[in-house]
């Protein structure tokens, strides 16, 4: 998993580089300062960060062989992730209604590609979490073998960290 995440780091690194190159190329469309709603995105970022906390609690449940506690926090993590995705959908919708679509400018293209790839990673993470929950419900997740919980927790934290980087580079640096 560590090996795979190293590869993912290069992937997001390239996407962020493209974005940094293009953040001022707005082709007369809206730019970062015109369109970002920093308070709103800060709240959804906070939600995602909290999901790392619940993930830790779920993992702790797994380590302590407490399956009920693990399931509870898995569900909580998945729910926070879903709230974040909901926020992203809302944000995209409002940007489109303000006249910034994916084809508007190099800035908008790189913004949407970067953030939606992150969104896809969160979605895949939610599917992993629900998969774990289902396996555990079916009694197919032996507690003495929690490598899967380990790996998915690691993945989830990685996706969170990537969001911190994206939030800094995409939202805060151009505006600040």
């Amino acid at each position, binding site marked *: 998993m560590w090996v795979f995440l190293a*590869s993912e780091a290069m992937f997001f690194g390239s996407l962020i580089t493209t974005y940094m190159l293009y953040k001022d190329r707005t082709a007369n469309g809206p730019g970062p300062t015109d369109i970002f709603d920093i308070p709103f995105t800060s709240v959804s970022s906070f939600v995602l960060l909290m999901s790392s906390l619940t993930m830790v609690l779920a993992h702790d449940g797994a380590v302590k062989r407490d399956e009920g506690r693990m399931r509870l926090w898995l569900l909580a993590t998945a729910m926070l992730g879903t709230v974040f995705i909901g926020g992203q959908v809302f944000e995209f919708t409002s940007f489109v209604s303000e006249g910034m679509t994916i084809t508007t400018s190099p800035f908008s293209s790189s913004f949407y590609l970067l953030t939606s790839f992150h969104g896809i990673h969160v979605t895949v993470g939610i599917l992993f979490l629900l998969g774990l929950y289902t*396996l555990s419900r079916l009694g197919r997740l032996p507690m*003495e073998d929690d490598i899967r919980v380990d790996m998915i927790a690691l993945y989830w934290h990685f996706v969170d960290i990537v969001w911190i980087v994206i939030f800094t580079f995409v939202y805060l640096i151009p505006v600040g």
Partner: protein
Amino acid sequence: MATTSIERSATLRRPSSKTGLVGWLTTVDHKKIGILYGMTAFAFFIVGGIEALLIRMQLAGPNGDVLTAEVYNQLFTMHGVTMIFLVIMPMTAAFMNYVMPIQIGARDMAFPRLNAMSYWLFLLGGLFLNSSFLFGQAPSGGWFGYAPNSLFAYNPGPGMDFYAVGLQILGIASLASAVNFIVTILNLRAPGMTLLRMPVFSWMTFVTAFLLLFALPVLAVGLFELTADRILGTNFFDVGKGADPILWQHLFWVFGHPEVYIMILPSFGIVSEVLPVFSRKPLFGYAAVVFAGAAIAFIGFGVWAHHMFAAGLGPIANTGFALSSMVIAVPTGIKIFNWVATMWGGRIRLTAPMLFAIGLVAQFTIGGLSGVTHAIAPHDYQQTDTYYIVAHFHYVLFGGGMFGIFAGLYYWWPKIFGRMLNETLGKLNFWTMFVGFNLAFFPMHMSGLWGMPRRTYIFPPGMGWDLMNLLSTIGAFTIAFAVLVFIVNAVRSHRVGEEATGDPWDGRTLEWSVESPTPEHNFHETPIVHSRDDWWNTKYEEDTQGRPVRVPAGAADDGEQLDVGARERGIHLPDPSYWPLVVAIGITVIGYGIVFLRPQGPASNQWSAGGILFIVLGVVTLLSGYFGWVLEPLEEPGGDDH
């Protein structure tokens, strides 16, 4: 082999057939997957070779009229893409799959089903790319598909969509393999097999896997951006909207230059196995060879812009990249000198694998030296996009990469198929290929320096290029003859070849310690490794002058056995599975959906219903494959997963 399985549910039963078609479709055995990789890549080698012959027929003389410009563009693009992604990489993957686990004393890869998925994605991705010929247009933008030139406005038709999506599919395959190789090498080595006792081929597998891991995602981003531009109408490469015209070049070459080492390092590994065996000496400077390989990989990430000297990056960037490009010649030189020193004073047996290995050393040196000439930026201005470049990269990739692969084919053939290849035919194969190769590509140095541009489908008479081109064409057909000799040899070996013993070459590494062909579970007992070249050291001791003396049979100390009676107890091997194939089919179907989504280009409002249908079908197949994979019963609790 015994499968002491736990209870299985009837609905999710894993296939158990080991033979016949189902056996091949569901196999997770690294050896069978290796053979599949090799055979498929060889078939693509013939396809790419025919494309090369058509190109050379067109260029045999001035004003050739065999091909039109459009077809010519498609052929040189597909020749490059095929040889790089569908021949050299998977051929080396074939050896990595087959040989590496045995060399490190493992029974299989860390993730056997993931390994099968990589193979199916490679096969389907290759067919996907080549199917573009059936849909009227193959990719025609060169193997590096420079954007904005590859955007819909300049290159309409499905060709470049096939390119972008096809490479993405192949990329997933390689990425999965890379993770698999790294985890296998880190976790499944036999007891005593420390990293610095590992055979050099396994080391180069390890290094190559890291290169793939860090280079491929960058290409993936470039391809996603290209696909989005072509299908959704985004503006990553649309200069009219203010995009940067060389963004693609940067992204592509950050991948593309490490890719060069991805292709050559495995062949370096093969040669580092072959030369010591046929010189009857240990590899000279083992640690230096290993670290030079790692250094090449590391520096390889810092030289990409030497492909772009002529793009106008400015003197500072050009100087920096020129220096780093020259530095990379140092570890490469270390390897060459170590190989020469390995042969020095050895008792050399000039068998077919040895000849190919020596061929690599000589020809790669020529290619490496011409490479240093383009590291000099002003010199490069003169050579960019001429046939000199074509000569250079064929010397490193064919003269280096393919010769190494042929060395590996002749070397490991008896181990893989249990029969020897004919030596006389092997030597004929080598000499015709060696002469043909040099006849085809050496004159390109001249025609290039005399100003002949690459990728031109026609050239006028009276430029002084006629003779050189004719020689290149004759050389290309000589190579084709050499490949035919190999095919004859392979078929002959299958019919009447001499049966191979377990150790026909008097080898040094663990794969020669088991029977040929390798038994399904690789080792009857897990080997315990005491030294580098462990198998050699169980056969030979040194006398007072340091000469090898054979240890009498049976006297070797093999008292230690980790799992005595493993044969009686039965050895756990992973069960076959359908799901890797299902997942690969799902991904490929999605690929077709994407290609046909917007047949009229991004500016139109037309979305094809067929494209959407294919995407939906593909996603459903992919998800069912995924869930089948996860929910499939493992043979024991705590067995392999994803």
